[in-house]
């Protein structure tokens, strides 16, 4: 014990300062597996990329599409977008982006259109195994007009024809690595073999030190021509455990907890109650749609009236109020209320246990004691699964179980670890009756993969697709197809309204709430603007202020 005390005394004399005055230390709960944006699509990575790169376009805090590194948004009106007949038939669109002047990699090499073309080429190369989305796949051809102008020929005219999340790769460093052997590019890219190498960043910061899985140290990019950020250095510290994350914040080891990768709303509310005087806690509803998928192949829930009854029987406002301090809005459809296409003209399901009971009676489920039974003598017993260990979801599950029991519906909880739940049960539609989880999507994103009948996972297609409810509705299929190619904003609103109305009538999934993100910030840090969409706050890190 004496040795222990002496050691502690010795340590206290070392008393190293916890943070440099010009350094902002951010605590996050995950570390990006790869720092190459083509090889991973995680929140942890996009949070980092917000500081070191910028895409051509992005969605701002008001959910408007704005330029990242383009000078102006292309449109049919300004001539930068033009319809083009495709060789194989059909109509495509050629979209031209003009790059902002003076963009440079952090080794001084100018960022050019060639860097964007390389990213597209590598992203689309099947040998590489890149994890890229629609934006890359729909580009048929890329033309480098000059060093600062590039044209993409897209395979169809879609509503978001002028949005492009493409981030360039430094051709002067990465092209030779790629050309040498595309098949092993993923294991040889400089972003992962030497992330601190000069020339990999062109945002306001560059990586100068990386400890894989643990810490990243960034400092100002000397060649950044935009507004200069306030902090000389930013350190990203990965702490997987919520309690340890809080302790590190309180001890001064980190200055803030990122909302995108931090702690859940209930923990943030508890933190605010205890330490609200010393920190600023911001809550922002996000695009994470917490809902219950209904397995429509299961006999009891195949009846639409049963699904409607289940939703009427949930007091979602009470859940949101009591568990989340009213920080997470109730979902009244599958489209966020922050979206311009959100519609109120949908069937609403306020808490109404009597209406729920009536619908169940109509569906043939009569109350027999405390349980409901059908004419065949079957009891209305359902199962609900979610990710085991997710305390918030487990708590919500218990409330749901209790509220459904009040209308005579018995629900059994069958949870599984995330990898089993998503990797097997949900993926193979083997989750029983109900599955509680969340979807994330970009603003305006069309729910093709989750609602179109062609996307139902089956043994025949290798369990591919994400329509886990097994929902089939030709009208919804048509609306999805139309939505993808309709550009006129008003016409889109009408289509979206129809889609939301059908969704809320059929209820292939039971909407719960829109999850919020919680940012815990020091009082001296200002102008951090949570977006709630997939653009992390770090895309505007140069606007952050030290008060």
């Amino acid at each position, binding site marked *: 014990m004496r*040795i*222990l005390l002496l*050691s*502690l005394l010795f*340590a*206290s004399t*070392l008393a*190293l300062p916890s943070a440099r005055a010009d350094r902002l230390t951010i605590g996050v709960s995950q570390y990006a*597996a790869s*720092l*190459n944006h083509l*090889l991973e*699509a995680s929140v942890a990575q996009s949070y980092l990329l917000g500081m070191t790169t910028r895409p051509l376009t992005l969605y701002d805090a008001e959910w408007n599409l704005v330029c990242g590194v383009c000078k102006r948004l292309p449109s049919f009106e300004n001539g930068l977008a033009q319809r083009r007949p495709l060789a194989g038939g059909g109509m495509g669109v050629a979209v031209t982006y003009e790059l902002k002047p003076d963009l440079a990699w952090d080794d001084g090499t100018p960022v050019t259109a060639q860097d964007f073309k390389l990213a597209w080429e590598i992203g689309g190369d*099947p*040998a*590489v*195994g890149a*994890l890229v*989305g629609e934006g890359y796949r729909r580009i048929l051809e890329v033309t480098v007009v000059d060093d600062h102008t590039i044209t993409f020929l897209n395979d169809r005219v879609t509503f978001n024809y002028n949005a492009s999340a493409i981030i360039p790769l430094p051709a002067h460093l990465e092209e030779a690595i790629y050309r040498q052997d595309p098949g092993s590019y993923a*294991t040889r890219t400089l972003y*992962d*073999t030497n992330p601190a190498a000069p020339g990999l960043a062109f945002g306001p910061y560059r990586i100068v030190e990386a*400890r*894989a*899985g*643990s*810490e990243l140290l960034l400092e100002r990019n000397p060649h950044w021509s935009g507004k200069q950020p306030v902090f000389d250095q930013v350190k990203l*510290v990965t*702490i*997987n*455990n919520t*309690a*340890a994350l809080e*302790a*590190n914040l*309180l*001890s*001064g*080891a980190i200055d803030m907890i990122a909302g995108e990768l931090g702690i859940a709303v209930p923990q943030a509310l508890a933190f605010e109650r205890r330490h609200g005087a010393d920190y600023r806690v911001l809550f922002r509803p996000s695009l994470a749609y917490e809902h219950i998928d209904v397995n429509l192949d299961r006999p009891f829930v195949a009846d639409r009236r049963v699904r409607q009854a289940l939703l009427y029987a949930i007091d979602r406002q009470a859940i949101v109020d009591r568990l989340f301090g009213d920080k997470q809005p109730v979902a009244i459809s599958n489209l966020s209320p922050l979206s311009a296409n959100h519609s109120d003209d949908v069937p609403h399901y306020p808490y109404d246990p009597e209406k729920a009971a009536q619908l169940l009676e109509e569906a043939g489920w009569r109350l027999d004691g405390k349980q409901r039974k059908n004419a065949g003598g079957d009891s209305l017993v359902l199962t609900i699964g979610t990710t085991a260990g997710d305390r918030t979801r487990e708590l919500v599950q218990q409330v749901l179980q209790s509220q459904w029991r009040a209308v005579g519906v018995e629900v059994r909880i069958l949870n599984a670890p*995330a*990898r*089993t739940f*998503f*990797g*097997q049960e*949900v*993926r193979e539609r083997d989750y029983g009756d109900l599955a509680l*989880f*969340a*979807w*994330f*999507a970009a603003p305006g*994103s069309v*729910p*093709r*993969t*989750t609602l179109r009948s062609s996307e139902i996972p089956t043994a025949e297609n*290798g369990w*591919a697709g*994400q329509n886990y409810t097994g929902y089939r509705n030709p009208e919804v299929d048509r609306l999805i197809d139309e939505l993808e190619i309709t550009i006129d904003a008003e016409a889109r609103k009408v289509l979206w309204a129809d889609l939301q109305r059908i969704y809320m009538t059929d209820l292939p999934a039971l909407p719960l709430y829109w999850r919020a993100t919680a940012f815990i910030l020091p009082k001296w840090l200002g102008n951090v603007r949570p977006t709630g969409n997939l653009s992390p706050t770090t895309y505007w890190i140069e606007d952050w202020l030290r008060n």
Partner: protein
Amino acid sequence: MLRYLTQRLLESVAVLFLVSAGTYVLLGLMPGDPIDLMISGNPELTIEDAQRLRAVYGLDQPILDRYFGWLGQALRGEFGYSRHFSQPAVSVLGDAVWVTLSVAAPALLLAFAIAIPLGLLAALRGGWLNRGINLAALISLSLPTFWLAIVLIYLFAVELRWLPAGGMGEGLAGRLEHLILPVSVLSLSIAGVFLRFTRAAAAEILGQDYVRTAKAKGVASVGLMLRHVLPNAALPLITLTGLQLGALFSGTVIVEILFRQLGMGRVLYDAVLGNDFNLALVALLLTTAATLLGNLLADLSHAWLDPRIGLR
């Protein structure tokens, strides 16, 4: 001796082969593959994306084909690439081993430093001191590591601000400073077992005829303990240490997560959860090797300390 070592080495190779096969198949049979994790929650990725990525990563091949492919590469010294850390698996583990050793080795020494004197003292004195030390050992065994770590973090990092809450530290002084809390937590959590073994072994030896003879000849308590009791009580401690070595090597996961030490436990945890087959497999093989080595060293130490024990 040489024959014994050769035999143990061959046995170890066989065990490692069986562990590698078993682990690979079990990991492969676990629900979900890396692609499922990549696409879960991302509706932007299509059926074709999932199928393309499975083909690129070879996940569309039968599990045994994948295992023998891996084994062939492993025999050539190529242990594959860690998807989770985007580095060769061996490189990730090379760093992690040193981190774990820097925490586990001092923790083991500190645990000995606490357990052996207290165990001997409890056996020698008996009475209230024995009961008090026994209670302390029981508390050490019962305290959840997670709870102890959080309490110490709040006490020393948040309230007193004497020590950092976690991290690796910069430079030697920084590293030492960052080791104090994790080493303390780990040593306190294992000291109880060693203390009880020491006390039980010493109490038994103190009843032996040769010890009574030594006492009758007037040998002082300290000399008695050091010359007659400790060498004999060391045998069960060595066995225990050999068994604990593998567990310490990979079982420090809670301490490593809470104190942000990227060691073997944390890497293994991340690898299994992240479906990082290559990394998980090599980490488990290393852990197995550490356990086998610990047992071999324990057997050799037994033979060295007690000539009556032969090596066969």
